């Protein structure tokens, strides 16, 4: 099988997010970047499928973004991915989810993968939109937010479990298919020291606009039909009202306030 894993460089979960002076960007100063945590589940799942099949399956990591995307590709290689592709071009800058999905779909198409794996969402824009758009552009079935994945012995069918309101859906797909990964799917491995050393030497293939059958006006900011108006900080909450007294008095006062002041019960 050929497995493509999509990975993205995002600010660390602990990062303090500060709005830039222009109001339409995030101040990059002091941000530490990591592989999107949900993408780690995707890399791990690709590697586990390869290890289970024990055949000529290959795992290719693909990342779109500025130079720091190379770091997450190195991480994917160190975990065990066979190849890595860095998708980057000044023409891609300022692209929205669909413009970026259009680019990634054309990067992936000639690879003819049997399975595309990605995170359920990237923890920067939290849009959860790029992967399903790629599935649509490539005409593949999709299963999103998947917590369990099985590939049939004949490698023709994937069955995915996804949580929905009130239960779990079992989605059956004919390969090739796209799956986005949820926490719980697996426990991502740490890169081994030999893996890290090997990854340093591996070539990372670069792909730009000239390598793709796309016009400049359909990618990046030019190809986007959405625009950022501005970022806002969260509205301040009024200061907390502490309720004193013994447990019974606290409880009674709380219930009264929820009823009479907040009017939520």
């Amino acid at each position, binding site marked *: 099988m050929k497995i493509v894993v999509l990975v993205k460089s995002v600010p660390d979960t602990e990062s303090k997010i500060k709005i830039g002076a222009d109001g339409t960007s*995030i101040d990059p100063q002091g941000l530490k970047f990591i592989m999107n945590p949900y993408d780690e589940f995707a890399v791990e799942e690709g590697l586990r499928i390869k290890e289970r099949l024990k055949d000529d399956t290959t795992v290719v990591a693909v990342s779109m973004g500025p130079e720091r995307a190379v770091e997450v590709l190195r991480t994917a290689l160190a975990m065990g991915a066979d190849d890595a592709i860095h998708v980057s071009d000044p023409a891609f800058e300022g692209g929205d989810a669909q413009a970026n999905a259009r680019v990634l779909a054309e990067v992936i198409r000639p690879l003819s993968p049997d399975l595309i794996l990605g995170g359920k969402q990237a923890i920067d*824009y939290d849009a959860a*939109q790029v992967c399903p758009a790629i599935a649509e552009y490539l005409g593949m079935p999709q299963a999103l937010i998947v917590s369990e994945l099985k590939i049939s012995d004949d490698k023709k069918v994937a069955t995915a479990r996804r949580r929905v*309101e009130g239960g779990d859906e079992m989605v059956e797909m004919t390969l090739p298919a796209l799956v986005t990964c949820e926490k719980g799917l697996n426990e991502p491995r740490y890169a081994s020291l030999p893996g890290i050393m090997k990854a340093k030497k591996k070539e990372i293939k670069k792909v730009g606009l000239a390598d793709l059958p796309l016009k400049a006006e359909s990618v990046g900011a030019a190809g986007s039909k*959405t625009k950022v108006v501005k970022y806002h900080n969260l509205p301040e909450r009024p200061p*907390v009202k502490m309720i004193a007294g013994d447990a019974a008095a606290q409880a009674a006062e709380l219930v009264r306030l929820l009823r009479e002041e*907040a009017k939520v019960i």
Partner: protein
Amino acid sequence: MANGILVYGEVRDGSLKAITKELVAAAAHLSQAGAGPVSIALVGDAATVDAALPAARALPVATVYAARHAELASYSSQGYAIALQAAIKASDAKVVLFGATALGRDLSARAAARCDASLFTDCTELVWSGGNLRVKRPVYSGKVILELESTAGVQMASIRPNIFAPAGAGGSAEVAEVAVTIADGDIRGRVKEIVRTSTGKKDLTEAEIIVSGGRSLKSPDNFKILDEMAEALGATVGASRAAVDAGYAPHSMQVGQTGKVVNPKLYFAVGISGAIQHLVGMRTSKVIVAVNKDENAPIFQKADYGLVGDLFEIVPKITEALKKLHASSH
């Protein structure tokens, strides 16, 4: 030129989902600002659509677009996107609204790519501004809010539950049949089975009231006191990552960055210190109550009401006080 707002009417277990009423209210708000008439799209096989049709027609909308096809008996991203595209064409809508539910998220992203429409997911605010959709949505795990505007021909958005008050009934919408063509090979994946895990309670992402417990609950058994309080409130029980990692509750109950992002009108954080990973999952809640024995717990800085003390004493007293309140108001 495209005009009007089409609400995707999600059908689950044979009935129109409650969030459809909230979406109709959101659409009415856009309509009043000049976005055109409001209609609903129902997608599915004949049985699915017919089951939801009376409830959809009773909402204050002009038209219900019924997109039926035998191949749509079970959900498929591909098949439903094809049918919805036909409904969008039939209605000539400029705006399409979805609930930010499991299905709404799946279908909206697929349909947007298919229709070359713009999509804003998980919106918490939306307005009609100069002939275009303008929204606010939390980004960076809810640490900041991003305001965006669309310039697309068809503009889609998914909206979180509990943002708009549900629209009332009183409509008698016309029904417009939508012809759906599905060819062999168009649908290559579909839902084969739904495994029930529900306890009959509302899902966390849709709940109006949530009672969540942290590691201070000390055992899975002790979650019973939260169950009892939730019962008295009609609430759904959640848990912090610490409680889930300790094995006190399943991951399906986890609220936070690696769990569910929730948006209730009332949220109780019981024995939860308030790590950033938890806060990003619940801080858009309208009213937050924190119960913790540590008066310096960070959760108190995000709460509206704070109670310092032993949760094992306070929680049963709250349950008692709630029951007393119900008894006196009936």
